[in-house]
């Protein structure tokens, strides 16, 4: 239950930290990034059932944001074109050895109407996750990180953003975020070392741009289904399409 005690003791023992940062590769050269992988995530099975969330019984302030309409969980959302939303697609291997420029600003996670937005997102290792509350009620954001340091912070209505720096990769599986006060609220945040990741939206498509030519393992992750993998080789200025189909049959 309490592996962290061992970690604390172990880190106490290591007074002088071992040298780190061996993974800093050569600086990124935009000129090589010419290839693109696109595709979409189809959904072929029977539509899974879901039940509406009742917010009003526990917290009227949550329900007011939706005008009394019942929301359904964000777990499995099927698009009209038969594709699956909220699938995290990323390059699992093949881009090692580069040091990519960091994006400006933080990755944002908003708490609005007692739902997290976005439900699934990717961010860069070393970037900060900024958790905002737009609700007139208290939230408590609890990050069930397994690789990074877990966090658990209360945010009363109108509180300042909680900012957490993600120091390690944690993409497979992504970190789960839950609200301790509203148990139906959950989100997933994947922390990736490079910028090649994408989340399927309302058309079920994804796009991984500016890749250097090479052979890549592409992973697709969905919170409810099994992880899928495909290997692609792309050449200079080439665009290839990769299709995933859920659920695995």
């Amino acid at each position, binding site marked *: 239950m309490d592996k962290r005690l061992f970690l604390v003791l172990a880190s106490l023992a290591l007074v002088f930290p071992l040298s780190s940062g061996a993974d800093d590769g050569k600086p990124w050269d935009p000129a090589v990034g010419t290839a693109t992988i696109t595709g979409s995530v189809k959904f072929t099975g029977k539509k899974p059932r879901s039940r509406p969330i009742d917010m009003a019984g526990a917290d009227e302030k949550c329900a007011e944001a939706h005008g009394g309409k019942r929301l359904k969980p964000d777990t499995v959302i099927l698009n009209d074109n038969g594709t699956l939303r909220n699938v995290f697609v990323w390059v699992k291997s093949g881009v090692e050895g580069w040091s990519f420029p960091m994006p400006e600003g933080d990755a944002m996670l908003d708490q609005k109407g007692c739902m997290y937005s976005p439900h699934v997102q990717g961010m860069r290792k070393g970037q900060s996750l900024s958790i905002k509350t737009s609700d007139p009620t208290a939230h408590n954001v609890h990050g069930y990180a397994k690789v990074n340091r877990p966090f658990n912070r209360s945010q009363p209505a109108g509180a300042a953003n909680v900012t957490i720096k993600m120091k390690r990769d944690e993409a497979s599986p992504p970190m789960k975020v*839950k609200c301790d006060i509203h148990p139906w609220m959950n989100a997933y945040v994947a922390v990736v070392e490079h910028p090649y990741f994408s989340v399927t939206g309302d058309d079920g498509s994804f796009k991984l741009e500016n890749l250097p030519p090479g052979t890549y393992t592409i992973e697709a992750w969905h919170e409810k289904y099994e992880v899928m993998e495909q290997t692609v080789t792309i050449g200079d200025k080439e665009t290839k399409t990769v299709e995933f189909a859920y659920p695995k049959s």
Partner: protein
Amino acid sequence: MNDPQYGWWLPPDVSVHGADIDFMINAIHWFMLALFIFWGGFIVYCLIRFRARPGHVAIYRDIEAKWNRWLEIGVAVAETVVLVVFAMPVWAKIKDDLPLAPEQDAMVVRVVAEQFKWLFHYPGRDGTFGKTGPEFYADDNPAGLDFDDEAGWDDITVRGFHFPVDRPVIARLTAKDVIHSFKIPVMRITQDVVPGMEITIWFQAKETGRFQVGCAQLCGLGHYEMKANLVIESKEDFQKWLDEEHEALGLDE
């Protein structure tokens, strides 16, 4: 914010069994007050009459007090009366007399406690609960329903508690993670909800109203927020609410 119905003494009682509890609480407090005044009066009297002053000498030999024996016997008798005449029968009625007979027309509801909200599970139109189990718990399935079981598909799972007045309610309480405690002050109910156990309680309301369900056992940092709205309503209103909830399920889509 100040709700006039709550003050310094007991909150309003809308339950059928609460009158007995309230009677006991009031009677015991009158008894306590009488005892306290008697004792306090005696002490103050002694402090004044037997204060040290020139010429006053304490009495060495034991005073022959008989009344203290009577006081102690009186306390013992009062406690026995409270225990045998009130405490035991009242508690036995609350705990053991489950309204299981069909003519009592008890409503059954399943209550699931989790960090940090309550969930209320009604059997829905078909009157039967769907199959449930801890292995089905998931973020999109807080009630732990087996989605493949048709009997459970019309079940109503909500975060607020509604039940009709003048009809016995049997609540089956389970907890997912840690110990919680199901508390409704106006119904004079407190019942710990222990993970790994299903605890059955029953109660019946005699008045309608809007109140709150709370958690009385420390269950983590969101313990203070673990509340649910409670609506005790007439049978007609309750049926109307059930119908609305059935609509909200969107089964016909």
